[in-house]
């Protein structure tokens, strides 16, 4: 029996390692499309719904926090600096990064009062990653904009967004480049402090 212990241990280990990847293969392209469609229509109903700019912002922050894999994005944009960070720096950073992201990105939609979107394609990029592309247009007669949403399957098997690519410009690539520039010059502690500063509501925010 003793002989089998390592084998069974190995088996258990293999199974636990395999399980997430098995779960990852579970989504069809159509399911991912539906997921993005759901998030987009939810966002749109907040934008075009009633309420003040402030309540809209709060609702958008809630959707954003629930549907974006913020810890993963936070690590990605830190690049190689994540590896060198101490556990305390990491948790501190992730906390500040989340507030920064919500304060600066989630609320950008709040300035619109309506809009339309049309999903044009959904593809399986392999590695439990998917891309759903759509064209979006604001209320004015401006040119429609192409937006690609990147989705991956998380450890718990749920679908979450991890990038938004607007007209070929990826949010996480841009932010990683921006952070790399700051980190290279001033280091992680400075970056964390700047994230905290930028998360504060701006006193000069004008109503438009």
């Amino acid at each position, binding site marked *: 029996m003793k002989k089998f212990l390592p084998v069974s241990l190995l088996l258990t280990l293999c199974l636990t390692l395999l399980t997430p990847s098995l779960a990852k293969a579970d989504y069809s392209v159509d399911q991912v499309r539906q997921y993005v469609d759901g998030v987009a229509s939810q966002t749109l109903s907040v934008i075009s719904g009633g309420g003040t700019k402030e309540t809209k912002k709060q609702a958008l922050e809630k959707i954003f926090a629930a549907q974006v894999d913020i810890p993963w994005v936070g690590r990605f944009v830190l*690049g*190689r600096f994540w590896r060198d960070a101490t556990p305390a720096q990491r948790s501190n950073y992730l906390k500040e990064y989340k507030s920064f992201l919500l304060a600066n990105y989630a609320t950008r939609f709040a300035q619109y009062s309506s809009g339309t979107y049309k999903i044009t394609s959904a593809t399986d990029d392999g*590695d439990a990653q998917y891309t759903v592309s759509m064209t979006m247009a604001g209320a004015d007669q401006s040119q429609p904009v192409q937006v690609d949403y990147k989705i991956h399957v998380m450890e718990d098997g749920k679908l979450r967004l991890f990038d938004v690519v607007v007209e070929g410009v990826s949010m996480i*690539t841009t932010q990683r480049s*921006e952070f790399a520039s700051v980190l290279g010059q001033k280091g992680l502690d400075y970056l964390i402090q700047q994230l905290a500063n930028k998360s504060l509501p701006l006193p000069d925010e004008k109503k438009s």
Partner: protein
Amino acid sequence: MHRTPRFRNFILAAGLLALAACADYTNEKALNDPDANSDPYEGFNRAMFGVNKALDTVLVKPVTDVYRFIVPETGRKMVDNFVSNLETPVVLVNSVLQGDQENTFATFWRFALNSSVGIGGLFDVASEGGLHNRSADFGQTMAVWGVGSGPYTYVPIFGPGTIRDSFGRIVDIAFNPLVWVHPTWYSYAQAGVTIVDRRSVYYNLIDDTYKSSLDPYATFRSGYLQKRTSDITKVKRRLHKQYHGEQTTSTEQTPSSAHIQE
């Protein structure tokens, strides 16, 4: 013309020299590995970025604010249509040079329709008929011809670019037929209106970026290089489709989970 042939030859020679420097240089490395430092003129570029930011604060933004206050959205849309229509001949010439039949066709009809039915370009009737705005510039054309981008550059007024694309902008000015038939002040007027129009179109994007970015210089640099690469990839794909059928070449690089560094 008021420019001597010697001056023109000088510009041409300087441009060719600059392009020779681009031959092997692309920004792909910078895009795939943003940690890599591939901005050899960063010191100069940052200084010019500062100059442009100052120009924006004291001149461009205030003028744009007045413009947005006085002119309602429909009027601003008409100005934007008008300015875009004036640029169509340049897009047309470059579409032809790229051998892009689809773009050439669409751009030709856009210009014909919008200039006539659209009353000199004030109304974008072509878009309503499904012929959306196309872009093409000489920097793109050179990219299609196989010229590398050269290092990133930031120039006052023109903003972000690369050596190749900055040279392309000069050529594009010469491609604009109106510059040759009108006196010099006309070029300045068109440039001025275009700057205010574009500042207005991208008003929120620019202001949000300044507000939220920890390093706006780096953010605009990354955004510009990604947009440029994406546009050029699109042109190349379209050309490939036109000349070799449906098969597309996948040159686009996207970040993936596998790239995360622990």
